[in-house]
């Protein structure tokens, strides 16, 4: 059944053939009668060592080369952002026209901009801002989305209806114009930027979470829990949310790159953090002005943005495959 234009789950809950204990993720995709597993559906119970769910996930993740490479890159990036500025003797706002517009060399590892400021240091500082904004915004978006979606999905009924209608209406708001308006009202800066990024983006995670909770609610183990007398809160926390956790983490990893791009876009339009502070977007804007003669100034932040976004995508995909490998290969 399609879920409100949210997830297309196409599933009949009765068909799950995996034993449901609280930590086990339900199967969302379809398999021909276990043939792809050679009929060994229940065979997984057999392995002597205790295999935990997250242990499995971790192992599968580690085997994914793209994801591992991307993770390594992201750690490096983080290190660069934190330590970078201390590695060179220049300040990020030190102007020196005599060395302006240099390409990478021994003195200035990433070259200099039109004011002669060292780009290695500036990019590190900018990385701090961009990463911080993206991660924080994603966190807020997911938090709001998860709370909203779980409440709606769990309680169902009129509350759910009303809440989702509200979401439907907000869906009609064009994201960028409102973000722009917000930023103009509130001025530049990190706080307003976070708000602008979050204000329309929480809609999709909330739908996602709600959809997942709705599907899970139908599973028998929820009924079993209630039959045993578990309170609703307990059911929500011990049973439903852990199974949703996977989806949430995946959404988080895929939300971050979207916000990196979002922040870069808004900054590019001139609404970002004010000089001399920098983010990748503001640096791209500066570089754009010199596109014809000194393209390096825009390519540098552009490369950072592109590769980081790609890395986060790989990590998110890798995590998704690790959690639910049955949707992938072996067929």
């Amino acid at each position, binding site marked *: 059944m399609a879920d409100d234009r949210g997830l297309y789950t*196409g599933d*009949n809950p*009765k*068909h799950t*053939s995996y034993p449901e204990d609280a930590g086990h993720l339900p199967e969302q995709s*379809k398999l*021909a*009668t*276990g*043939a*792809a*597993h*050679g*009929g*060994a*559906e*229940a*065979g997984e*119970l*057999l392995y002597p060592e205790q295999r935990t769910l997250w242990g499995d996930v971790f192992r599968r993740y580690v085997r994914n080369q793209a994801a591992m490479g991307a993770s390594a890159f992201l750690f490096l990036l983080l290190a660069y952002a934190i330590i970078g500025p201390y590695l060179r003797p220049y300040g990020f706002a030190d102007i020196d026209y005599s060395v302006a517009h240099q390409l990478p060399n021994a003195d200035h590892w990433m070259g200099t901009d039109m004011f002669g400021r060292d780009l290695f240091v500036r990019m590190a500082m900018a990385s701090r801002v961009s990463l911080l904004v993206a991660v924080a915004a994603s966190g807020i978006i997911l938090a709001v989305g998860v709370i909203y979606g779980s409440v709606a999905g769990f309680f169902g009924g009129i509350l759910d209806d009303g809440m989702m209608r509200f979401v439907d209406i907000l869906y009609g708001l064009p994201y960028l114009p409102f973000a722009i308006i917000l930023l103009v009202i509130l001025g530049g800066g990190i706080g307003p930027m976070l708000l602008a990024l979050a204000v329309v983006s929480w809609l999709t995670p909330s739908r996602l979470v709600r959809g997942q909770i709705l599907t899970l609610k139908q599973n028998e183990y929820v009924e079993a829990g209630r039959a045993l007398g578990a309170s609703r809160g307990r059911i929500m926390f011990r049973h439903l949310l852990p199974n949703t956790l996977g989806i949430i983490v995946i959404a988080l990893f895929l939300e971050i790159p979207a916000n990196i791009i979002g922040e870069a876009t808004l900054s590019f339009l001139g609404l970002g953090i004010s000089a001399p502070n920098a983010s990748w977007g503001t640096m791209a804007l500066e570089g754009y002005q010199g596109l014809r003669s000194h393209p390096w100034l825009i390519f540098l932040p552009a490369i950072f943005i592109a590769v980081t976004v790609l890395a986060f995508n790989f990590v998110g995909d890798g995590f998704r495959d690790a959690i639910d490998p049955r949707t992938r290969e*072996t*067929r």
Partner: protein
Amino acid sequence: MSHLLEINNLRTHFFTREGVVHAVDGISYTVDRGKTLGIVGESGCGKSVGAMTIMKLIPMPPGRIVEGEILFEGKELTKASERQLQSIRGNDIAMIFQDPMTSLNPVLRIGYQLTEGMRIHLGMSKQEARERAVELMDAVGIPAARNRLDDYPHQFSGGMRQRAMIAMALSCDPKLLIADEPTTALDVTIQAQIIDLLEQLQDEFGMAMLLITHDLGVVAGVSDDIVVMYAGKIVEQTDTDELFRNPQHPYTEALLGSIPRLDETRRRELANIPGLPPDLVNPPSGCRFHPRCSHATQICVDKEPPLAPHNGGPGHLVACWHYRDSREK
């Protein structure tokens, strides 16, 4: 006497990243025209894989027919081309599956799905096919058939959907119908109806049937012969009456023993078979049932028992070192 379907020493393995799954490991059976063979076993024993291998419906990577022959009307299916197989599927051999909700395409009308096969295999026109579809739906007991031709699967109840699947399978008058757990996803009362329906249709259409299930009750009424499978192998094979009257293999005994019976006056605990289903990547040595068998001895661990007639008669095959008759001394 030539059989309609003859399977000889079939082995189907799946080559996955976690190892080779020996799903079907050397099974042989035959089905004759107009007769019904029941294949019984627990989940994962290879009964479905075996049946799907007949028409090569298993995913071929990672699956592979490692050994064996499949002879349908004398034609060797393992060597047939995809083209040849396509003309047999749905036409000479038809198959119905376990879950009718997911086995029918939700966005296409029932009428269309019913007539698809007929138009391709029998060359019927759309009109002709539709007429025949209505007949078929009547035959399987779907009321107001003509009106329901243009409905969608989700507008049918579970039992009706399965009937529609059956109608679809019979549309080209197949010689063999393979029914893979046709009643498992249905309510018990509907189960009985469907089984009766299958029996009745078999009389009417004269086709042979391969009935796969884990439910002995289902198989008891309808099959002529039964094959009991475990862990990819056949452990016992004989005609229905003999099996129920005189089960020889410990597994069969246990299966029969685990069914609650109406005629028991004493209350007893529901017997079950201890242990867990076997790992098909590294199956137990010797007799694959030995870890769960109360009669197992050292030879059961060391050597695999052959499927051979027990001294009760040539038609009753058992694969066990300590089958029942040999135990009672």
